[in-house]
């Protein structure tokens, strides 16, 4: 009789425990696929997040702008999208035209999930980055003019208006996500020149954050996010990080290295396996203030 009286409560407790365990299980990701370290190389400090991509469990997603259909901002879109997903890291992506979140637009050609955000090519940004439906990130060097898209035999030169429209129409029809950034290294070579003019923005010193794609010493595909806290110019920062990756991390190849904006919208968060945020490695702005977000998640 006593047992029967407590049966509903015990059942409820059991369901609660099971559901809690289930929720916790959803938030976890495989720790072996992520490596977070802090290293000092030639008296420079680097915070390094290595994401192993060989078994396609880690994917990328880019939010470029407010959704034109429902007016949800980037942070709102991210909060909705991330439900039920294991987030590993979030970072601000490309540069914006202003610092104000209300008016800021991504600099350079930008397409968000097939929706045009910015049609204009920014000639100062040499890399065109494509985040495909599988969550892979690919970069092409715009000056090479040899972008290939499925179903088009001819190489596309994005600088040519006719080709660019062919590409944009393809991106629209295939819900592609595209943005531009500084292409600092490409095909295992540095792709940046020293700044000659001390008045230009290239001479400005700031802490830097880079995204790299390549293969590690075991020839396995990786993405690396490197945060360099010391104040450097873009050129100096890129050269130091390139050397660090080649000499210290012994990366076999660097497919590309792009800059992630740490200017007006310095957003970065690293999530632990239990879903909590790392306090020792983060940007100066909260995710809710983000104007665009590059997200790495585990599936």
């Amino acid at each position, binding site marked *: 009789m006593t047992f029967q009286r407590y049966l509903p409560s015990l059942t409820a407790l059991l369901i609660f425990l099971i559901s809690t365990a289930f929720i916790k299980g959803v938030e976890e990701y495989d720790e072996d696929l992520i490596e977070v370290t802090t290293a000092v190389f030639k008296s420079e400090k680097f915070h390094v997040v290595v994401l192993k991509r060989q078994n396609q469990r880690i994917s990328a997603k880019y939010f470029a702008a407010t959704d034109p259909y429902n007016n949800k901002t980037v942070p709102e879109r991210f909060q909705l999208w991330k439900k039920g997903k294991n987030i590993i890291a979030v970072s601000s992506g490309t*540069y914006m*035209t*202003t*610092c*104000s*979140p*209300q008016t800021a*637009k*991504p*600099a*350079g050609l930008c397409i968000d999930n097939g929706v*045009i*955000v*910015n*049609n*204009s*090519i*920014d*000639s*100062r940004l040499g890399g065109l980055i494509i985040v495909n439906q599988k969550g892979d990130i690919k970069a092409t060097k715009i000056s090479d003019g040899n972008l290939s898209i499925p179903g088009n035999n001819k190489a596309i030169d994005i600088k040519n*208006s*006719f080709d*660019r*429209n*062919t590409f*944009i*129409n393809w991106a629209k029809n295939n819900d592609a996500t595209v943005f531009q950034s500084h292409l600092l290294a490409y095909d295992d070579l540095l792709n940046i020149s020293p700044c000659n003019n001390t008045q230009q*923005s290239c001479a*400005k*010193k*700031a*802490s830097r954050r880079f995204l790299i794609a390549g293969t590690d010493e075991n020839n396995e595909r990786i993405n690396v996010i490197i945060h360099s806290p010391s*104040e450097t110019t873009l050129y100096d920062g890129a050269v130091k990080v390139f050397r660090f990756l080649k000499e210290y991390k012994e990366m076999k190849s660097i497919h590309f290295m792009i800059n992630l904006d740490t*200017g*007006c919208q310095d957003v970065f968060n690293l999530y632990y396996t239990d879903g909590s945020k790392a306090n020792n490695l983060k940007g*100066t*702005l909260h995710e809710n*203030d983000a104007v665009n977000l590059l997200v790495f998640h585990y599936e």
Partner: protein
Amino acid sequence: MKKWIIPVIITLLTVIAIGVFLSYYLHRNDQNDYRQVQRFYNSSTISADSIVQKIRNKNSYENFPYRLIAENISLSNIEKQQELLKYVQYSDSLIDNNFQELIFIALSDTLKKVYEQSIDLNDLNTLLSLTNEVSGLYPMTLANQKNKIFYQALFDYWLQRIIQNLEHIAQSHYWSKYTFEYKYISTVCEQYNYNPSTGLSSAEKVLDNFADNRYSYLFNRFVLQTTLLQKTILFIILTFVTSCVLFTIYTLLKSGKS
């Protein structure tokens, strides 16, 4: 009247007639397409079909009168654009789709020459007129037709040039981006999702952040981006200013009591 005058006049007239006939005949082939296209743009009596048929028969795509079209075309003249579209559609049936691209390249290159020789694209007023002109192409880029990519590319080509020049103007004349013309052009371009990117100076970034009440961000940036010496100098200045203010208040209160 002398007897030889009449034969001489007849001979001269004959020579002139032969000369006129020969020059007409020799130049007819060159002029024909040219004039037909000119008439095509000036009236509705000549059909696009006849011109295309003519080119098809001659099989001479290299004679396509790009320059004439470029010079006669007004970017904002939708009617002419539609006629040109018809022409392009027919032309497509002649050879592969690359012909569209050839026409686009030829048109944009020729228009570039025509515009850049005659106007200064680094002048904001001229750029504003061109922006209004190019806006006229926009409806054609939306039309649901096979060749809309031709118009999209042409529209894109000109807006891209406007954006580039706008950015160049803003970089060479800093204050120009606060003028009405600049703001108007950039607003029109943004309407079509072409966003000029002129970069921001440090002062503009600070003002932007102040306007958005992002004080903690500004404080963080200050802490991160200044040297120890700069921080010390600022601390000394702030201490001095605070002391002055406090001393003034104290003095005022004291004088008020007495």
